[in-house]
């Protein structure tokens, strides 16, 4: 049963302190969310290829490939995964191509904001990607 499973979330940011502060800050969601962390986009892709994730939240300014490219890749290799971006830069600025398919959390965001966005993304994604796809994957 999906609803009884914890929501699998992958957080990607090249700044380890961001990952740490989110890990501590989101401790209150322990019961519902399982968090995984990656500092490099290649590591993130590896993780997505081997594990199931309900949500990926990626920073935009990353080494080797930007976050937009990363979530585009993840969306193709794992259609069941809902993707979100987070960035301290304005969408459309240099190094941040706009892709309307992905919502953007503007840093610095509040933890409650993050929770809202993740919940919303999960609901929206369930609606858009038919349940069979989820079953197939599981």
């Amino acid at each position, binding site marked *: 049963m999906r609803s009884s499973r914890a929501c699998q979330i992958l957080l990607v940011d090249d700044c380890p302190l961001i990952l740490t502060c989110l890990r*501590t*800050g989101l401790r209150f969601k322990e019961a519902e969310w399982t968090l995984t962390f990656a500092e490099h986009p290649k590591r993130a892709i590896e993780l997505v290829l081997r594990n199931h994730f309900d949500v990926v939240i990626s920073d935009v300014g990353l080494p080797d490939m930007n976050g937009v490219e990363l979530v585009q890749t993840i969306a193709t290799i794992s259609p069941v995964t809902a993707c979100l971006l987070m960035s*301290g830069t304005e969408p459309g600025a240099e190094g941040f191509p706009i892709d309307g398919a992905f919502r953007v959390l*503007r*840093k610095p965001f509040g*933890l409650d904001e993050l929770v809202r966005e993740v919940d919303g993304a999960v609901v929206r994604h369930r609606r858009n990607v038919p349940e069979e796809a989820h079953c197939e994957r599981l």
Partner: protein
Amino acid sequence: MRSFTRRSLIAQGAVVHFRIALVLISVIPALVTLYLAGATSVSLDRIPYAGLLLALTYGVSPALGYVILSRYPRMAVRLRAYLQDMLHGELPERIALVKSEDDLSAIENSMNLILRKLKGDVATVSSANALLQEELVRVDKLRAIGTLAGGIAHEINTPLQIIRSHTEFTSAVLCQVLELVDQSPPGGAAGPADRRWRWAQNTLIDVTSAAQETEAAVERVAGIVTAMQSFASHGKSGTAVRMDLNATIMQALTITHNEWKHVVNVETDLAPDIPLVECYASDIKQGLTDLILNATRAVAERGDRSHKGVIQISTQLTGAAVTLQVRDTGVGIPQAIQNRIFDPFFTTREVGQGQGQALARLHSSIVNRHGGRIFFDSQNNQGTTFTIVLPLQRSTSP
């Protein structure tokens, strides 16, 4: 340089013609003299006459030659010099060819008319050129500042994220701990245990509120950085985008806050129902900032330190346009200069204080780029209201 060239040209021409004249005019009398002197049969008593003649000839003929030649060739040479100057882009004050002579003075007059007109045109073109140059430099500078600000904002936002997450976490946890402490007072009478408990409880209360204040401060910094970032992102200033005018007004107030906070209270009355406005965002952002700064200065100029002035900003949906008003309680715009404030470089500020460009720029953008209107109403020592009517859609016609 050039006038020296012209003068030397005239001099050169005059000398050449003068020499030819000298030769011509001298040859005949010289021959006569020689004849009189008698080349074959020299008679001594004729020599004085010959001497006299020679002296006369060489004394008078140069003067004669000069008089004859002074008219035509000098004029031609001058004309040539003037034309050469003009071709080099140097326009003489006026030209002077001859003293009288009807045909020639008619030409002279016409040329002077042409000259005057040309000079006017050149002045217009070069002042427009100067304006354009300045505008280009400004745009360049803004672009550089924008890039810089965008980069700085990004750099600030990452540590801000860390601070924000940690303080949120800290204050949430502190609240829980405080609750726990509140619920478990040490039993028994007032003793050292009780004092320690009270100390812990009070300290927790202080630390919790410290964390909450930090949270609020971080949120403020975040707001300022966001406003700066969005203001700096000039986007492509050549393309129109759909912009949230009310949000832009609030951001303009945020980034100008330091300028007006001691001078005025700002009141906003922004209509919640206005749709996105299709506009050149950087023009509007800049214009809003300028209107706010002008209004602030006008209030400051009234010099009433005991009473803060007021700036009221309102938006309103008026048909297919948004009407934006910026009202101040400043000195007002004197009647005498009301028709000049939209002129480029018009300013009443001291040198170095103002460029007199803001309103000219805004006017040109609203009218020419947006097909909108801008006007004002001003009462001496009561205040000024600037009104901008901005169409929601830019008309597609040119």
